């Protein structure tokens, strides 16, 4: 039996040396005359163990990690190609607690398969959703997505099925599907993992969306900061065209769906859907007024579905196993699973996909193992740079859109950034204003001017100047941003700022 060894090609794994490890394994195998099949898989999402090397054995895949090039010769000495014992040995990959406790639907294949291989994709349930969709009416596809309870995973949590239905019911000669892959939130990387680790699932999801609403052209708007994802997506799109999964006659159905990746250029605001469409049209990424909704008048004035990577990548499993299957995960009105990303100062950072409902505390301690520094966790920011900071007293909040909203916090795209007790929350509040200032598109005054004034006020507060006047001024400014901004950039910058002030007033020089 040939030996198959897996070394991730995920860019975070590469950032820790996976590329060098793969090379060292290839060289060592050649030197020893051992024939191996080296597969570059996606990451399992257990980043404290990366580079994570796996070997296929009769009992299942066995993991070793974190492996550095210097460990490779020792691994061969220990007979790792047969799953031999070694100090870096972790046992069966799928028995590792962190992985075993997850409910992987959207991420079912990631880390298991070769992302470059369409054959591997199809052999692991890939394109089963499309096959079903091709036998359904457009209304039935939209109904399945509606029944699943899927809500926009980009952060806004708008019901995906309703968006699709609006586009389906808006007559037009040309409609578009846009995948928002401008994953700019700090602490998030699930979109990147999908695009690098299972690109076909995104292509399949977009194809199904296209069939469902009569859109023949799709664009993936990808951030320029993801060069590895660009390569993987372009290669996968080329394979899909070659095998008749994209193009003018999808699997002999006579139906058309074309797909192209377009690159952003480092503007955070282009993650906002109307700004994204301006950018795709070749303009400055200025936010548009709504209405009209993109579903009625979007890209080039045509009806357009704009969905996040995770939303679209969740569609194939819904069409494969049914809306009910997906809906049975989760709690309340938050149905299905959420791929949570644990980041920042955390001992076991990574990707945890689970049905909604787990508490933040369970994620931070049971999965994450507490802070990386070993110091107490002081605050966590959930939902990216526009998400609120949560103090320890809110760690029992369950992961559920409504439970977070009730706390004046944001679940967003599921990114959790952990800070230990060395953080100064006034400085983080200043950073939030600074970030808004740098990234503001400039169209509306509250965001453009308010963020600049916000940095100035925060500088005064940090320097202890006129706190009696400046704290109310900061609150007043946040009120203007919150209620007067055109989009979420200005409208939500007050979340991190005010949550920092309200929960950690001592860092602002104010007595609690």
């Amino acid at each position: 039996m040939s030996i198959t060894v897996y070394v991730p090609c995920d860019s975070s794994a590469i950032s820790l040396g996976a590329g060098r490890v793969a090379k060292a394994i290839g060289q060592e195998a050649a030197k020893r005359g051992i024939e191996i099949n080296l597969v570059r898989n996606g990451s399992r999402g257990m980043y404290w163990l990366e580079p994570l090397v796996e070997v296929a054995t009769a009992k299942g895949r066995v993991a070793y990690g974190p492996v550095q090039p210097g460990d490779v010769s020792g691994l061969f000495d220990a007979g790792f190609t047969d799953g031999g014992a070694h100090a870096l040995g972790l046992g069966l990959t799928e028995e590792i607690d962190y992985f075993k406790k997850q409910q992987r639907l959207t991420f079912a294949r990631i880390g298991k398969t070769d992302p470059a291989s369409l054959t591997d994709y199809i052999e692991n349930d890939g394109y089963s959703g499309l096959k079903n969709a091709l036998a359904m009416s457009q209304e039935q596809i939209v109904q399945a997505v509606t029944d699943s309870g899927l809500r926009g995973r980009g952060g806004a949590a708008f019901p995906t099925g309703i968006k699709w239905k609006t586009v389906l019911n808006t007559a037009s000669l040309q409609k578009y599907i846009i995948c928002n892959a401008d994953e700019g939130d700090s602490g998030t990387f699930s979109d990147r993992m999908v695009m690098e680790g299972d690109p076909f699932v995104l292509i399949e999801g977009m194809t199904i969306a296209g069939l469902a609403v009569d859109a023949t052209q799709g664009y993936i708007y990808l951030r320029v900061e993801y060069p590895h994802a660009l390569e993987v997506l372009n290669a996968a799109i080329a394979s899909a065209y070659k095998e008749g999964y994209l193009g003018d006659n999808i699997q002999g159905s006579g139906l058309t769906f074309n797909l192209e990746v377009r690159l952003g250029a480092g503007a955070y605001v282009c993650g906002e859907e109307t700004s994204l469409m301006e950018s795709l049209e070749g303009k400055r990424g200025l936010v548009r007024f709504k209405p009209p909704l993109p579903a009625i008048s979007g890209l080039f004035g045509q009806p357009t579905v704009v969905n996040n990577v995770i939303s679209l990548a969740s569609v194939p499993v819904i069409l494969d196993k049914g809306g009910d299957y997906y809906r049975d995960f989760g709690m309340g009105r938050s149905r299905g699973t959420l791929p949570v990303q644990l980041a920042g100062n955390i001992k076991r950072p990574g990707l945890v996909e689970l049905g909604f409902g787990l508490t933040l505390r369970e994620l931070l301690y049971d999965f994450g193992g507490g802070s990386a520094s070993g110091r107490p966790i002081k605050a966590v920011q959930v939902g990216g740079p526009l998400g609120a900071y949560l103090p320890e007293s809110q760690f029992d909040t369950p992961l559920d859109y409504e439970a977070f909203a009730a706390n004046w916090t944001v679940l967003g795209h599921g990114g959790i950034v952990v800070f230990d007790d060395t953080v100064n929350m006034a400085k983080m509040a200043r950073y939030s204003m600074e970030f808004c200032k740098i990234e503001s598109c400039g169209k509306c005054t509250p965001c453009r001017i308010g963020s600049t004034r916000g940095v100035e006020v925060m500088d005064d507060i940090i320097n202890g100047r006129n706190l009696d006047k400046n704290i109310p001024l900061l609150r007043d400014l946040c009120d203007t941003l919150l209620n007067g901004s055109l989009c979420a950039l200005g409208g939500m910058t007050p979340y991190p700022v005010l949550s920092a002030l309200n929960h950690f007033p001592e860092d602002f020089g104010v007595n609690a």
Partner: protein
Amino acid sequence: MTESGSTQTTVQEIIAALKDKPGALLPILHGVQDALGYIPEGSVPDIATALSLSRAEVHGVISFYHYFRDTPPGKQTIHLCRAESCQAMGGRQLEEHVKAKLGIDFHETTADGKFSLEPVYCLGNCACSPAMQIGKEIYGRVTADSFDATIANTEASA
């Protein structure tokens, strides 16, 4: 051919290949920056003419996006992440070290032309913070020492 002549030819080829795409401006600007490292001011009129835009509109787009630059970069561009996750793992201290080591601030290029330093707001490597990118290579759990070693390696292989 003169240098500016060959630059213009490159730009013309890129325009010809991409101008018929819907929303062609960003693809063209990416093409030019990929080929030349920046978008020369002299290319703006050609791009504007090809797309029936005003020069002001093209300039407006170039200056709106942080990634596009209108001056030549150093041999290597270092993108250092400033976002929250990296800050939670000592990113601010790393930022000070990097600036001191290179002797430049963000948006500047070292006097010897070897390195440009740009801030970036998230590389999606938040599970391995702090992070940076040099060219297309991404680095995780960067420390002051590992930064120095990476720079030395990059210089040696340049």
